[in-house]
């Protein structure tokens, strides 16, 4: 299984409090690094999964379990470069 690295932004959350970070960990996001800046909370993930889709889907599910809402997901440059080309 590969580790996928992406950053997940949370909707309607301007500050990453300790409580939120605890909740994330407890919900299974122990592979994330919760942070916030400029009025936006987010968490960087290192998720092990069979594919990027699964990685994001499982992470999003865990985040919802913690009572948070996913606004967007951002991929790193190097992560994108490692992906297979899109089939159109």
């Amino acid at each position, binding site marked *: 299984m590969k580790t996928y*690295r992406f950053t997940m932004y949370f909707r309607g959350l301007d500050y*990453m409090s*300790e409580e939120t970070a605890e909740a994330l960990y407890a919900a299974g996001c122990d592979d994330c690094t919760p942070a916030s800046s400029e009025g936006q909370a987010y968490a960087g993930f290192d998720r092990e999964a069979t594919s990027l889709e699964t990685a994001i889907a499982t992470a999003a599910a865990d985040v919802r379990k913690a009572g948070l809402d996913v606004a967007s997901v951002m991929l790193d440059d190097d992560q994108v470069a490692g992906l297979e080309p899109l089939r159109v």
Partner: protein
Amino acid sequence: MTSRATSRATRSRTVYVNSDRDLAAELGARKTAGPATRFNSGIRRTTCGTLLPANADHSLDTTTSNRAYGLRTENHQTAFRIVRVLKPGCSLRATRIRIPSWLRIATQDARSPGSMTFAIVRYRQSSQPLIETERPLLRLPPVPAVAVGLGVTRSAGVYNWRLKRAALMAKQHPNKHIREAIQYAEQRGWRFEKAGPRAHVYGSLLCPLREREGHVVRVFSTPRNPQGHAQYIRREVDKCQH
């Protein structure tokens, strides 16, 4: 020369050190305390002097007799106690004492006659005072949880006590990668704040902008992937424009 009465007095005294200065003072005071004396407990007081155990202490130490022992003081700040001083010439390996990486050990040359081999200092974080003290504790500094790391280095035949501020020790994350990442952040003006009694969050890194809008990174105690966690911490630090 130490009289019998003095040595008895020394023996029944428990020493608590709360800061580098206290520790240095204690060690300095004992240094001139006299020649090696053998205590009933079998622990040898040496030229450096043991900071240790009155017989009464053994009752407290029964479960941790070979381990370092710590306590919290009345006002719930961390205090230190040197628990066991090994006999001269005794190697650390022979005592089978497990030394955590964050523990600093004072060592002196075991081969120099009558010198102390090891003093072990440790602190434990707990919210309850563990024992009643025999005498009033030294006045504690206003900063909470000031821990003391004690190290001795040897240079040109002179033992230099290298004392380290314990606030730094308190910041020691169990994982090496994360510890380094926290140091990396601190070198760039970030502050590390240890979290309270929490299950998963070890502490927080805060960027130089002291506002809510500033960067906050929550550091976990046991992340699934410590290296990745550390990388993220470094990345946040690099990204920060404040």
